[in-house]
């Protein structure tokens, strides 16, 4: 049975047990989220700017700006801590949030909005999704 990818230590920090390939995969995901938040042409950009109040023509600009800043801030913190062996709670939360944003954006842009669509998607795409789910599942277990 393979070991855990993340483990909560007694001192409260979370140990990252990813090898270089695992960190490389995560780096790519984090970089995509940061690029998507900054580039309106990025394929994930719309999924990061979903309506807050769909009954209104426009969302409160302050709320939209807050969301944009927080997503970018989480992605930046995640990238800055990519090589760390131990994460504190805030850093681990940034990793989890950024991974989850990436997972959902991947699903949205590929139209994977139901279990049936997910089961019939391309194998490479399904592999990417399963990898992100595995990272998230193990990181969530540390909270």
């Amino acid at each position, binding site marked *: 049975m393979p070991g855990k990818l993340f483990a909560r230590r007694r001192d409260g920090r979370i140990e990252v047990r990813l090898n270089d390939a695992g960190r490389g995969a995560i780096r790519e995901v984090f970089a995509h989220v940061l690029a998507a938040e900054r580039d309106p042409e990025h394929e994930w950009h719309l999924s990061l700017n*979903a*309506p*807050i*109040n*769909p*009954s209104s023509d426009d969302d*409160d600009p302050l*709320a939209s700006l*807050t*969301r944009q800043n*927080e*997503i970018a801030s*989480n992605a930046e913190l995640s990238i800055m801590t990519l090589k760390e062996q131990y994460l504190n709670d805030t850093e681990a*939360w940034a990793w*989890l*949030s*950024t*991974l*989850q*944003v*990436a*997972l*959902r954006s*991947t*699903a949205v842009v590929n139209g*994977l*909005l*139901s*279990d049936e*669509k*997910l089961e019939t998607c391309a194998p490479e795409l399904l592999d990417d*999704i399963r990898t992100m*789910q595995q990272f*998230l*599942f193990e990181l*969530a*277990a540390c*909270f």
Partner: protein
Amino acid sequence: MPSVQPLRFSSTESDVESEVAVITERPWNVIVWNDPVTPMTVVVVIFKRIFGYSNNKCTDLMLTVHHEGRAVVWSGQRERAESYCVKLQVAGLQATVERDA
């Protein structure tokens, strides 16, 4: 000698009246929508972190989202509802606000 400010204000008639006015307004609901990719444990962790609910309540809400397609995870004042909605979206969940029917 400086006057001592009371630490606890006593209720007045006007306080009670404004409270009644707030209660009779329809609240705003924060809705979380189901998606086929987010692991269930991640949803529970996000609810716990953002709302501070108990593990049981977070699990119940997550199961409601999973089985019914959506769940009302918080209700109340509009500004707070929008703030919670943004926090959920920043954490990667599909969330919206809507006025209680």
